[in-house]
């Protein structure tokens, strides 16, 4: 009886339209949409640098430093053409460039400028700077003697001679970037973001310089290092063998959603098992086979069929859409299958509650699924982080969050401890759902049918 019931349960699952739509077509369609919508964004090899014209109405060394670095990198983000305004507009009209960055000067009397920094402040800053280790190494004797005199002297003539024409605004000039684009698109968006980023960076640099020179923060040594660009604060180390690019994350989320959607097929288990929910349930309860045995066969059938759906989903995003899950593909399969089993069990549990019909319970499961997915950040990014901060327990018990977390840990961790912790949590939840579902359906006589 047992294996025959399992066989028929599997057959039935794949003959239900909703299962085909939500568990097979949904990941294929949405995954394909992801691929065409976002896929190229994250494929760095195929990324094309954005051709950009630059019109300089004033000289900005920092701009050159930053933008030239972007243009000269191994995988350049920009290709820059420095030209006059007329030439730039012509290039834009011809479609040779996506946009024009115009660098204009800003009056140095503004509040943000550093022209009000006093010569004494600058002198104090310079004294500290020159006293820093290594600054005077490699200078010729004459320069060394001059600077030594300066450091030991309070004579303003040295100071005046030294700081003549020098100010914070000379080191990081204040300029204003304006961007001209012909049409919207990825290139234009990128240019806009880069221009904004540069202006922010410029402002931050100027603030640092001003504070340092006025002795508010930082030592000369720190500023010196910062200006030389050799301050290494973060060392980047590869911690994972997975793929943590955002595109793969979309796919992880998609797989997690499909796993949780298993609840939709699981919801019918209870109704086909209980005499007060369906005629089929009544017929099966009258049979000469224990209810628990029938339940186990049903669950196993659903587990197998849903696992098959999960394998299809993962295989599709991996081999058809070409998503790179690093060297951890087998773990992705394992997480997806266990997530699916948990989803089916969750559906069985929800289906066991109350005497409503299958339609109402499917609606309930859908609502519950969506809530879980929303809270786990599958719909709106950032929700999970908020919950982590204010109500971490929700993330610990939310089935969708558990599946997501397992994939997340798979993609960011070098080890597998946290991943296996989440798999264990899935198993625990599965056991809890099945146990609760069985407790609710085990009643052997009904007060009414």
């Amino acid at each position: 009886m047992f294996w025959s019931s399992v066989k028929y349960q599997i057959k039935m699952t794949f003959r239900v339209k909703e299962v085909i739509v939500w568990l097979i077509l949904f990941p294929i369609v949405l995954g394909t949409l992801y691929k065409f919508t976002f896929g190229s964004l994250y494929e760095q090899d195929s990324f094309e640098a954005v051709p950009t014209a630059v019109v300089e109405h004033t000289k900005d060394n920092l701009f050159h430093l930053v933008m030239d670095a972007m243009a000269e990198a191994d995988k350049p983000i920009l290709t820059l053409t420095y030209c006059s305004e007329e030439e730039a507009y012509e290039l834009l009209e011809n479609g040779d460039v996506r946009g024009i960055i115009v660098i204009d000067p800003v009056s140095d009397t503004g509040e943000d400028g550093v022209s009000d920094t006093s010569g004494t402040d600058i002198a104090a800053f310079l004294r500290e700077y020159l006293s820093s280790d290594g600054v005077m190494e490699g200078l010729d004797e004459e320069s060394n003697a001059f600077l030594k005199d300066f450091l030991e002297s309070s004579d303003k003539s040295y100071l005046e001679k030294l700081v003549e024409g020098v100010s914070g605004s000379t080191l990081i000039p204040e300029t204003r970037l304006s961007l001209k684009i012909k049409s919207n698109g990825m290139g234009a968006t990128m240019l806009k973001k880069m221009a904004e980023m540069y202006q922010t960076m410029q402002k931050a640099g100027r603030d640092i310089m001003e504070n340092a020179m006025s002795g508010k923060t930082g030592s000369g040594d720190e500023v010196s290092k910062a200006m030389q660009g050799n301050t290494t604060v973060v060392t980047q180390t590869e911690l994972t063998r997975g793929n943590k690019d955002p595109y793969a994350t979309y796919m992880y989320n998609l797989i997690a959603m499909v796993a949780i959607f298993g609840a939709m097929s699981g919801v019918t288990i209870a109704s086909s098992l209980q005499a007060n929910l369906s005629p089929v349930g009544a017929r099966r309860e009258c049979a000469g086979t224990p209810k628990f045995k029938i339940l186990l066969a049903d669950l196993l059938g659903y587990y197998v069929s849903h696992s098959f759906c999960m394998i299809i989903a993962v295989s599709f995003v991996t081999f058809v859409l070409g998503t790179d899950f690093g060297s951890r593909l087998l773990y992705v399969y394992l997480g997806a299958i266990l997530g699916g089993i948990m989803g089916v069990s969750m559906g069985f549990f929800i289906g066991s509650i109350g005497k409503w019909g299958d339609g109402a319970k499917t609606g309930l499961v859908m609502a519950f699924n969506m809530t879980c997915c929303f809270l786990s950040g599958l719909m709106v990014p950032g929700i999970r982080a908020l919950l982590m901060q204010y109500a971490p327990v929700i993330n610990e018990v939310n089935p969708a969050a558990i599946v997501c977390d397992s994939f997340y840990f798979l993609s960011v961790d070098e080890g597998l401890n946290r991943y296996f912790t989440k798999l264990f949590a899935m198993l625990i939840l599965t056991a809890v759902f099945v146990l609760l579902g069985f407790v609710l359906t085990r009643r052997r006589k009904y007060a009414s049918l």
Partner: protein
Amino acid sequence: MENTVVKIENLVKNYAELRALDHLNLEIRQGEVFGLLGPNGSGKTTTISCLLSLLSFDEGTIEVFGKTMTPTSYDLKSRIGIIPQNVAVFNELNVYENVDCFCSLYIPDKAKRKQYVDEAIAFVGLEDFVKFRPKKLSGGLLRRLNIACGIAHKPDLIILDEPTVAVDPQSRNKILEGIVELNRMGATVIYTTHYMEEVEQICSRIVIMDRGKKIAEGSKDELKREIKNTETIYVEMDQPSEDVIKNMRGLSHVSDASWVDGRLIVGCAGGKHNLVEVMEVIRESDLDFGRVYSELPTLNDVFLTITGKELRDKDERQEEPTAKKKKKA
């Protein structure tokens, strides 16, 4: 008693304030086609549900094959075949798969099961539809599938709960013939319905229920003997005078006479030439008349005599297809 298949004693079932079964006693013997007849809401399905241990009950005992029936009496359950009132099949499985799926709950051996399933399908005449899913079957074929799923494991006791509701006459006859055949093959049958003609046609013993109580029990002849009228004569005519009706009542075997809805209705208790005598009175009164016909008593008359109400609504069967069409529309 050795040949008692089902014994129900003092069964009481309450739904909140409503008493659905009121100290019901039934005894069904081996080899019977036992009819449980009663109007809708009389407690037939509740009785069956209690018998199958699906419903809890407040008082009484139920024994099946000499043992107390409980929800875990799997040995007893395996000897029972149930054909529920609502079609209980999986819509995702075809005819063969459905019968096999339910049969597998009783018969673990695959080869034996295949033989049983084939026989059940042949028995209900669905050989040409084995690959059809339930949604592709007509109402009558669906009912036959419902029966096949309940009898495939060759049970000793078959319970059919209103199996012919909303079934066309051809399918109904096929179903009724099948039930008689199952009984001939050795199965005891419990048949619940509110169609008295079916009970009269196939049941060897009948219990009539109303409001959760057994109000009559016996073979159809025994039940009919409980009522006074042995024959009812109908004469279509305009309303006769009171003298004519009085003359009718004065006839030796006439128990009652009245004019209702354009018909003179004359009830007779005994007598052999009642129709001739009635027509003689009409001729003497020089009255015009239309159709004349005579009916023997039915179980409805029995029910009417005992309860004072009809067993089922008049022309209910004719209304069913219309109601179905309306539902479809």
